[in-house]
């Protein structure tokens, strides 16, 4: 316990300041309207891997670490789509995952929005033409925004998320 406290004091809080710019690509107008109001202070995110190589997941997990600590912004990853406001989907969506992704989207209560993560999530990326790939996330569920990158860094992810709920800058 004491060692633990000493270590905590030694390292201090390493959280980085909130990012100022994002590369979020908005799709459609929904994100500019009612969603901002509702989720500005509290956004619960369900992450769905619909076929990624795990690179995006690796960086998304990083968001929960002390450097990025997305909880300080009221963002939180949840266990069930029932609890979620936002689906953070990585792709390319494979044939084997398409139906599961659709069901996850259906299981999420309204109002909700979808952010596709990564170049693969946007359009399938390098896997676009593979035989077992359906394509980008928008081929399966309606996408409201895209955070590009391969994989996007935690900074980019955090900026994108904050941008989506209108809390950037």
């Amino acid at each position, binding site marked *: 316990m004491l060692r633990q406290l000493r270590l905590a004091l030694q390292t201090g*809080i390493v959280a980085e300041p909130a990012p100022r710019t994002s590369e979020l690509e908005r799709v459609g107008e929904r994100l500019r309207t009612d969603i901002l109001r509702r989720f500005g202070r509290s956004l619960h995110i369900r992450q769905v891997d619909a076929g990624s190589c795990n690179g995006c997941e690796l960086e998304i997990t990083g968001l929960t670490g002390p450097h990025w600590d997305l909880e300080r912004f009221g963002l939180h990853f949840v*266990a069930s789509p029932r609890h979620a406001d936002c689906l953070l989907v990585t792709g390319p969506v494979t044939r084997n995952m398409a139906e599961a992704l659709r069901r996850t989207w259906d299981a999420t209560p*309204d109002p909700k929005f979808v952010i596709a993560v990564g170049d693969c999530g946007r359009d399938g990326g390098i896997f676009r033409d593979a035989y077992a790939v359906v394509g980008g996330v928008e081929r399966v569920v309606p996408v409201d925004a895209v955070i590009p990158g391969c994989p996007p860094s935690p900074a980019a992810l955090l900026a994108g998320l904050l941008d989506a709920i209108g809390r950037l800058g």
Partner: protein
Amino acid sequence: MIAGAALGLLQVFVVAAGAPLLVGVLRTLKARLVGRRGPSPWQPYADLRKLLGKDAVVSETTSWIFRVTPYVLTASMLVTALVIPVLVTRPPLGFAGNIVLLMYLFLLGTFFLALAGLDAGSAFGGMGSSREVAVAALAEPTVILAVFALALRAGTINLGGVVERVEAEPWLAVNPAHLLAFAAFFIVMLAETGRLPVDNPATHLELTMIHEAMVLEYSGRYLALVEWAAAMKLFLFLTLLANLFFPWGVTHLAEPVPVALGLLALVGKLAVLTTLLALVETSVAKLRLFRVPELLAGSFALAILSVMAVFLLR
């Protein structure tokens, strides 16, 4: 009568409104202790408000039990807020059944929540229910025995009476029986409110959850109520710990100034207990599921010892 009603409302308000803050502070503290900045202490309010604005998705397998449960749960907590001495020693419903009622009010909530967990027919809900009732059933004897140890001294099982008695005889608080009972009750509190090392409130793994697994199907306003009730349960348990074992500040006067002081005292005591809880939670891991009964058996032994101490030291 009117003063009593007003006090009742005030107690309910303090519990209902304060509970999310308590949970928020606890989360922030825990984050700080592990080197994160963590959410704002006010975050639970934002979460609840957001949830109220969401639609509910309800499994078509479920029955009315599923929909009624959040209300029953909330009601049982609100009634509990009228039963225990939060600000004053003689709360409005203090007469309605004393300590035993308290125990059964918590069981009432557990009963319905566990049923709701089974209602959707998913394995996760069943898992949560089965674990939750196991923990609740095994924690029960400790609750009643720990409080019995206190009641033995006070000559009443009226919670207010216990508080007044300990207040009148401060040296009681350093009595071994008292300390043992406190330890036993603290462990039971960890189990009943789903804290580490019994349940991990922050886990994301369906298979390890207890409370979270039962509420996995809830959404929107239902989820808001369930979360709110869970927060109230934590608040109530900590308040019980604070006021039964360290009763100073709880007033028997239904007047504004003593009540306000009582509130201040409560805030102070809760702050200390919350810090203690955060320290405990960050310094232990979650027990393997079937070690939990051993922990509860340990707390039961403490409670028995505490009762024995009363008999032997009288």
